[in-house]
């Protein structure tokens, strides 16, 4: 029996979102552990995808690109999405279904899981195949505690998981596997039109956000005084980076939700992540552990954050930030003069 992995493509205005490429990268890795398996990516769209988009999906690891078209796929129409994915799943019989943990993925995946009578694990930070049973091993931080739970769906198929954008990496090479394209025009007159889109206003996305910055400087409770946030933004702007925050700071409205890094905020993957005064609760770690290089500053030398760091500075965050900023300013001056 073929053991297909199916990835639901995240399309934004008919462009493939980077999180889909990350899932394809992971799918190839999983596929190597499953005999006779292939990777299918499913895209729901109003018209056909551009050739470049299809090529991108193949290069990124898809053996087969399956495009379903319907005029109701322009925006996320719950009813139509559910019906078409239910139908495709029943035809394709995938062993695994993966989707990005976006507003669409986080809504349609649980619905699809319920419709297919199977389990779903949300916001996985790790995926693997169990050597013995061949089932999907899904890891995610468990609620409330400093623990990571590994979850499995022993007897139900498909095995379903959502993954935050920026958790995995896309392939670093061009995949040259079996290329297949299938386009189905989805018509189903039996679908009840129970929801209708009245309007859509796109939001301005010009602002520098934590998910795209090369450097993220994050503040936690340890900075103790709202005035010290100035140091965080000063360092961030020196480094052309973004300001992040742990949940407590967002909860007390020192910074807005857009800055929140962690399980209930954003997952980030910058080149350098600086955690100032963050103790390292597992929820926060979940949002930053895939950063390339982590620098953390904390008064408590036993703080959990140090275990996820490349450099750890033990001391008062405010004072250390001041010194770093001072030295950076000096060397900036030197570089300018050089």
């Amino acid at each position, binding site marked *: 029996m073929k053991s297909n992995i199916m990835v639901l493509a995240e399309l934004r205005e008919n462009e493939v979102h980077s999180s889909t490429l990350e899932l394809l990268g992971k799918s190839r890795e999983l596929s190597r552990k499953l005999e006779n398996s292939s990777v299918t990516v499913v895209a729901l769209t109003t018209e056909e995808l551009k050739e470049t988009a299809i090529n991108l999906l193949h290069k990124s690891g898809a053996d087969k690109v399956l495009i379903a078209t319907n005029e109701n796929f322009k925006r996320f129409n719950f009813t139509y999405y559910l019906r078409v994915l239910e139908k495709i799943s029943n035809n394709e019989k995938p062993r695994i279904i993966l989707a990005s943990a976006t507003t669409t993925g986080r*809504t349609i995946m649980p619905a699809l899981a319920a419709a297919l009578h199977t389990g779903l694990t949300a916001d996985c930070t790790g995926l693997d195949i169990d050597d013995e049973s061949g089932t999907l091993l899904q890891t995610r931080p468990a609620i409330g505690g400093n623990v990571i739970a590994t979850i499995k769906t022993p007897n139900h198929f498909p095995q379903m998981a959502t993954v935050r954008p920026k958790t995995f990496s896309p392939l670093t090479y061009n995949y040259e596997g079996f290329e297949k394209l299938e386009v189905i025009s989805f018509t189903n007159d039996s679908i009840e039109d*129970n929801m209708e*889109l009245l309007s859509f206003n796109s939001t301005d996305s010009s602002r520098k956000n934590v998910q795209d910055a090369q450097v993220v400087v994050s503040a936690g409770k340890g900075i103790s005084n709202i005035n010290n946030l100035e140091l965080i933004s000063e360092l961030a702007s*020196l480094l052309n980076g973004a300001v992040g925050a742990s949940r407590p700071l967002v909860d007390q409205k020192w910074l807005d939700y857009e800055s929140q890094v962690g399980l209930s905020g954003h997952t980030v993957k910058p080149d350098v992540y600086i955690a100032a005064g963050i103790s390292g609760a597992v929820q926060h770690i979940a949002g930053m552990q895939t950063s390339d290089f982590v620098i953390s500053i904390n008064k408590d030398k036993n703080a959990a954050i140090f275990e996820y760091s490349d450099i750890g500075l033990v001391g008062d965050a405010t004072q250390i930030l001041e010194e770093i900023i001072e030295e950076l300013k000096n060397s*900036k001056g030197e570089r300018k003069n050089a």
Partner: protein
Amino acid sequence: LKSIINPLDLNALETALRIKETNGDTAVYAITMGPPASEEALREARAMGVDDTYLLCDSKFAGADTYATSRTLAKALKSVGIFDLVLTGEKAIDGETGQVGPEVGVFMNVPVASYVTRIVDVKNGYIDIERESEIGRETWRIRFPCLLTITKEVNEPRLPTLSGKKKARRAKINQYNCEKLKSNPNEVGLKGSPTRVVRIGTPKVSREARIFDGPELKTGIKEVVKVLTNYLEVQH
């Protein structure tokens, strides 16, 4: 119009109560599944103005994943009555996963709108809502019956009044166990859950940090500056 809420989410509760206030003939029910202590939350809901409350409580329900939870909730909803609108928090009973809302919607066979940020209008037979996605704000008209998952932005929940509290303190909470719900014991709780937690571990230590403490702190700061210098934004 009848609507129902998950009482752990005050924003969903507030949404229901406001709909009731603007649409005369509405009853709001609160339902939750959980241990006996969940009664507290239901009493608070009652104090805020909910008409009736239901607690699904049975040791057989323990260990349920979102699939089993949703299935049990949907079953209870069907036995309690016929609802036009079911509201849940964006991330509610199940902590952080946000799965229960959409799953309940499927088990009840109703459309779902998630990440609702505003109730625009409630009319006979449908509701207009705004929801927010990564790229924009959508306005949808959804026919009843339907399920909405509500974000914090939608409103500011009310405080219960003294008279509400008094009533709630003495109110009866309807209790459903597995038997009363006529659920198959194999379809609830851990037994009815497709997923299993197979391992609980402390997060894997993936880095070996060089820690600079006390007298070495200076050296550490120098190291950090060395790394960061590469990212300095130099004006041109």
